[in-house]
C-alpha cells in the first residue's frame, strides 16, 4: 500500500499548505465585523478547483491500482508479459496530443481563434489514435495468447490500460464539447476555460500514463524493490 500512502501524503502536504493559509489559529469569537477573505476563496473559477479535486480522486484511484499491482507481483505465480512495441508509438501520440492542447491553450492567449480550433482538433484526433493504438496492442497480446485470466500480470495490464483509456474517453467528451463550440465560431476568450480544463486533464493523464508505463514495462521494478526494502 506504499504507493497510495505516498500519494495521500502528497495530497496531505498540499492540503496542509492550503490550510496553513487559512488563519486556522485565529480566534473567531473575538473578531466581529467584516473580514475580507482575500486568501480564502481562490480567484480561480470553481470549475478549475473542481477539476483539481477530481484529479486528486483519479490520482488516488491509479495509486491504488499501482499499490495492488506491486503487492500482487510479489507472489510466486506472477509472469511479466512482454510489453508490445506499439505502446511506445502510443506514448508518443499521447505526448503529441498533450502538446497540441498546450498549443491550443497558447492560441487562446494570442486570441487566435483558428489556432485554437486546430490545436483542439489535433489534440482530439491524436487522442483517438492513442485509443485505437491501445486497442491494437490488446489485440496483439490477445493473438499472442496473453489472455486476462491466464496470469495476474496480464489481468493487471488489461485492467490498468482500460481504466486509463476510459479516462481518456471521458476527456474526449469534454474536449468534443469545447471543439464544437470553437467550430461554431466562439471567441477565444469564451473558450479559455474549456481549453484550459482540457489541457490540465490531458497533461495529468499523460503523467499517469508515463507512471503506468514505467510500472508495466518493469522499469519501476528497481524503484519498487527499493521502497519495499525501506519498509521491511
Amino acid at each position: 500500500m506504499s504507493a497510495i500512502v505516498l500519494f495521500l501524503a502528497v495530497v496531505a502536504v498540499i492540503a496542509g499548505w492550503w490550510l496553513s493559509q487559512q488563519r486556522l489559529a485565529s480566534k473567531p469569537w473575538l473578531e466581529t465585523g467584516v473580514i475580507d477573505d482575500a486568501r480564502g476563496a481562490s480567484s480561480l473559477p470553481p470549475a478549475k478547483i473542481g477539476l483539481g479535486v477530481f484529479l486528486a480522486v483519479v490520482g488516488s484511484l491509479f495509486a491504488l491500482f499501482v499499490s495492488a499491482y506491486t503487492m500482487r507481483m510479489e507472489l510466486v505465480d506472477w509472469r511479466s508479459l512482454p510489453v508490445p512495441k506499439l505502446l511506445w508509438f502510443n506514448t508518443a501520440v499521447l505526448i503529441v496530443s498533450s502538446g497540441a492542447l498546450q498549443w491550443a491553450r497558447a492560441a487562446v492567449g494570442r486570441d487566435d481563434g483558428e489556432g485554437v480550433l486546430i490545436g483542439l482538433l489535433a489534440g482530439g484526433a491524436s487522442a483517438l489514435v492513442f485509443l485505437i493504438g491501445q486497442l491494437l496492442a490488446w489485440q496483439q497480446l490477445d493473438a499472442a495468447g496473453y489472455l486476462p485470466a491466464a496470469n495476474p500480470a496480464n489481468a493487471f495490464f488489461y485492467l490498468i490500460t482500460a481504466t486509463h483509456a476510459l479516462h481518456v474517453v471521458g476527456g474526449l467528451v469534454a474536449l468534443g464539447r469545447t471543439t464544437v463550440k470553437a467550430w461554431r465560431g466562439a471567441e477565444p476568450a469564451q473558450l479559455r476555460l474549456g481549453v484550459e480544463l482540457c489541457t490540465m486533464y490531458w497533461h495529468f493523464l499523460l503523467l499517469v500514463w508515463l507512471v503506468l508505463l514505467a510500472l508495466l514495462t518493469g522499469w519501476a521494478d528497481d524503484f519498487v524493490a527499493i521502497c519495499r526494502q525501506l519498509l521491511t
Partner: protein
Amino acid sequence: MVDVLSDTNTGITPAEVVDVELYHPKSWWTTYIFSQDAKVIAIQYALTAMAIGMVALVLSWLMRLQLGFPGTFSFIDPSQYLQFITMHGMIMVIYLLTALFLGGFGNYLIPLMVGARDMVFPYVNMLSYWIYLLAVVVLVATFFVPGGPTGAGWTLYPPQAILSGTPGGNEWGIILMLASLILFIIGFTMGGLNYVVTVLQARTRGMTLMRMPLTVWGIFTATVMALLAFPALFVAAVMMLLDRALGTSFFMPTLQEMGQLMKYGGGSPLLFQHLFWFFGHPEVYIVALPAFGIVSDLISTHARKNIFGYRMMVWAIVAIGALSFVVWAHHMYVSGMHPQFGFFFATTTLIIAIPTAIKVYNWVLTLWRGDIHLTVPMLFALAFIVTFVNGGLTGLFLGNVVVDVPLSDTMFVVAHFHMVMGVAPIMVVFGAIYHWYPKITGRMLNDGLGKFHFWVTFLGAYAVFFPMHYVGLQGMPRRYHDIGETSFIPASAHDLNAFISVAALIVGAAQLVFVFNLAWSLFKGKEAGGNPWGATTLEWQTPQTPPAHGNWGKELPIVYRWAYDYSVPGAPRDFVPQNEPPGGFAVQGARA
C-alpha cells in the same frame, strides 16, 4: 465576548461576491423530480436513504428473530440469515448513513450555511442523486434475482464471496452487489466534488473558514476523505468483479470446490482486505465526522452557549480525518500480519483517541453551565455523546492486538461498532432531522411523539447493545445462524439473546412513530416561523421558510461573526445571527 475588531464597515454593500448564474427550472418535472436545486436533491437523497434504511431495519428484525429464538422460525434458513446480515450491514453503512449525511444533510446545509445560492455544479449534483438511486435499485434487485442477494458479509471477503458455498456467490447476487457499489461510488464522487468546491469557492462575504459552523467543517472533511477513500473500494470491487466474471486471479488463491480444482490460482485474499479496509476505516469517520459537526451545533444552540474550544474542534476534525487513513490494518489483526505492523497500527489507532477525546470534552464543557433546553434535538445530541463514549471505550479494547485477537469475530465486536458507528450517528441523524425539519418544511415535528420516539430508541438501543458485549465476552461468535449446543456459552446468554431480540423489535417499531410524525407534521405540525430555535447560523436567517429557489433574496447575506454567539453579554437577545452587523440588526429574517 468582547468585540476586538471594532467595525467601521457596517454599511458595506454585499455585491462583492460574484453571484452564480442560477439554473431556473421551467416545469414541474425540473422543479421537483429532475431538480438541480440542492435542497430538492437533499430531500430526494434523504427519502431514498431512509426508505432503503427501512429495508435494512426489517432485515435486522429477521436476524434477531433467528438469534433470539433459534429453531422457531423455520422460514429463516442459514443462507437467508447470511444474506440478511450482509444486506443489513451494507445498506446501513453505505446506502443509508453515507448517503444521508453527505447527500442529504450535505446538500441541504452546505449552500445555506455558507451563504451560497446553490451548489457550484448543480447539473452534476442532480446526476449524483440519480446514479445513487440507480445504485439503490440495483441493490434492491439482488433480492429478486435467482439465488438472492450475496451472503458474503458486508466486508465481501474473498475467496468465499464468489464461491458457490456462499449465497449469491456463483449467481447474480455478488455481481449486482459489486455493480451497485461501483455505481454508488461514481454517483458519490459527483456529489462530493460539489460539496468540496462549494465550501471552497461559494462562501459568502465574511464567511472565513474559521467562521463556518462545525457542521460544515464535519461534512467538508468527511467528503474530502470519502473522495480519497472510496476509490479503494472501487478498485477492490472492479477486481473482484473480474475475478468472478472473467476468471482472473487477483484475489482468488488456488483452491478446490466440491473436490474439483478451480480455475483460479495464486491470488491474494489479503490484498482485498488491504484495499477494503483502506476504504473501510475512513468510512467510519466519513459517517462520524458529519455527526460530530452536527452535534456540536445542536448542543451549542440548545444549550444557548458558544461551543467550547471552536479552534480545537476544527483542528480535531482535520486531525481525525488525516489519522484515519493510517489505521486500516487494525481490522486485520487476525490476518496473520507481521507483529510489528500490528504494533504500528495499534499505536496509530490509539492516537486517534486524542483528538476524539478533545471533542468529547469540548461538548461536555459546552454543556457546563449552559442554559440546557431538553428539546428533542438536544436529547438526541446528549444520547449521541454517551453512546459515542461508550462505543469509543470498547474501541480501546479492540484497538489493542492482544485484546482484539480473542474478541475478534465475536458479538463484542458487533456491539462495539453498532454503538460507535450505528447507534451514535443515527442519534445525530434523528437529532438533526428534529432540528432542521422546521426549516425544511416550515412546520415543527410533534414534540410528544418526538420524545416518545427518543426514549424508546435510546433506552431500547442500550437494551440491545449493552448485553451484546457480555454475550460476546462469553465467546458467542458473530455471523452464526445457530450456535447449537456448546460448552462455553451458558444458558443465560441464550436468555439474553432472546431479551435483545425483543428489545430490537420494539426499537424498530418505534421508528414507525417517527415516520408517522414526519408525515403528520408536514400537514398538521405547528407553524415554525423562520428561526424557531433562535439559532445563529445563516440557514435560519433566510428570507423565506422553507428557503426559496436561490436561498437568499436579491442579495447574499454578509457574515460579521462566528456561528456561536449565544448569550452574549449585553446583546438584546440570547443569540446574535451571523449576518447581524456589529451594533446593528439582522438584515434578513428574525426570530419567530
